[in-house]
């Protein structure tokens, strides 16, 4: 390495630290807002430090939108969706990667096309479907429509192609049934890919907004993003409560992210970055 001027190095670090502050400060500000009464971040000069009003904000928020119930809804919907979509997409990805069958390429091509189609096109017919079967304002209406997530199927197929055919053949020669091979041999090998796809699906549903907004109609069924948007729509907004709500939606994800950064980054990026 040549000698580098200390000035250059200082400038580089300065630039990066400014970027870090811009990236991270809004989270701090959210936390300050969540732990102070509404007026504290809305005065000049604002209060820059976390306060002790967090519990109060939480209680008010719970009275206002039933935040405990809403968090439970979000968790239940997201976990059910993730499990269901992961199994459906993994099974399909396995078939596309490891079997020859009639129509394989045609069906797979349709899935690729579906990745490009904006999901908003399906909103109105989906609303009609669920309205016809009387499932508006239900959890299954939020969970089911995206369970065969084309991009997740695509990702699993890409990953599955790395499994050597000889491994599967050996198992067949040993007399293992096809489902046994899938559950006992393929899935264990695919654990890292499953984790990444699982995180991708989890984040999609946890943050999903427009469809739950359309289909969920009463407060006791709301998910976090929908409940938060309803708070903002109220005529008198209590910012302490709003910030507590955004904190509750962000903090659990942030903790997981800090624990599992690598899986998280590759999961959110949908496997476009290989670690």
């Amino acid at each position, binding site marked *: 390495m040549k000698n580098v001027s200390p000035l*250059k190095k200082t400038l580089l*670090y300065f630039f*990066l630290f400014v970027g*870090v502050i811009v*990236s991270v400060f*809004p*989270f701090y*500000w*959210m936390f300050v807002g969540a732990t102070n009464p509404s007026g504290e*971040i*809305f005065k000049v*000069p604002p209060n820059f430090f976390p306060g002790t009003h967090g519990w109060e904000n939480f209680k008010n928020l719970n009275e206002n939108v039933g935040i405990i119930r809403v968090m439970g809804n979000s968790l239940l919907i997201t976990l059910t969706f993730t499990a269901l979509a992961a199994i*459906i997409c993994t*099974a*399909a990805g396995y*078939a596309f990667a490891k*079997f020859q069958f009639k129509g394989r390429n045609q*069906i797979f091509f349709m899935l690729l096309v*579906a990745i*490009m*189609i*904006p999901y*908003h*096109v399906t*909103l*109105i*017919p*989906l609303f*009609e*479907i669920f309205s016809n079967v009387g499932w508006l304002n239900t959890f299954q209406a939020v969970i*089911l429509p995206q*369970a*065969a997530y*084309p991009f997740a*199927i695509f990702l699993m197929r890409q990953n599955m192609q790395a499994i050597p055919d000889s491994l599967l053949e050996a198992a067949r020669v*040993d*007399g293992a*049934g*096809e*489902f*046994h091979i899938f*559950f006992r041999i393929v899935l264990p090998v695919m654990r890292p890919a499953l984790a990444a796809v699982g995180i991708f699906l989890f984040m999609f549903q946890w943050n999903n*907004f*427009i469809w739950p907004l*359309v289909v969920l109609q009463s407060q006791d069924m709301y998910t*976090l*993003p929908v409940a*938060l*948007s309803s708070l*903002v729509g109220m005529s008198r907004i209590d910012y302490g409560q709003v*910030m507590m709500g*955004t904190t509750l939606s*962000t903090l659990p994800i942030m903790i997981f992210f800090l624990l599992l*950064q690598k899986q998280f*980054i590759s999961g*959110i*990026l949908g496997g*476009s*970055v*290989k670690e």
Partner: protein
Amino acid sequence: MSQTNAEPAKSNQPKKRKRWITPKNVPYLFILPAVTFFLIFTVYPVISSLLLSFQKREGSGYVFAGLENYIRLFQDGLFYKALGNTFLILLIQVPIQLFLAVIIAVALNSQLVKMKSFFRIAFFMPAITALVASSIIFMIMLDENYGLINYLLSFVGVEPIAWLSDPFWAKVALMVAITWRWTGYNMVIFLAGLQNIPGSLYEAAEMDGASKLKQFFYITIPQLKPIFLFTFVLSTIGTLQLFDEPYILTEGGPNNSTLTITLYLYQNGFRYFDFGYASAIAYVLVLIIGVLSWAQMKWAGEDK
């Protein structure tokens, strides 16, 4: 599963017993759930909304209306406004965001920088927030009278800016919030691309006496071309579907200055319950995304 339990396989001497599930038919079983869901929740809605776009409400049902919705759309000033806003964001915000992402990625990739993973995590952090949450935080920080950003700007002598209630500044506010949310996301993609550029290219340039700046423009940028294309396609599709941020930040206002295509679709579909018209908007969106994606791919293909 019962299959395997019923047949305790002798591993050394496989029995040729008839199985119901064979490698020939099992792939159909594996894709069955996905295909069923896909047909019901994607294929049917996509076709149904195409049909709906040629229908209009009459009484309690829908009747065929020919091209009426599309004709109305092409005469609808609000639709043009939504289209214009969306493309303005596409043309201004996306390049800024990708430029910032490349710069940060290159800086982070520099051998001078220690604590790389700390920086990477910090820059990526905004990408884990729900769009609704990040929009709310920005809505609060951008408040005209009490917001933090105007307070900080007052130190450098800037008069309070009406971020959310002035048509010009509302667009800026929207772009700022989107840039905050997505720059780190794109940065990580660029970083991965940078790490795949062979170091020998830079060594050779160094020997030839090329400056760092020259190396950046003649090695880094061309080598990153596929990554640029990838992030550009992603950002384009994302921008064309922009909904959560304008819904929360400005509800499309003031005076529709932040109305986007999907927001207009939502308003027509679920506020006025004009399903036929909303479906026509959706199909114009499909068409735009299709044409743009095709053009971008063609452009990429020709370059190879």
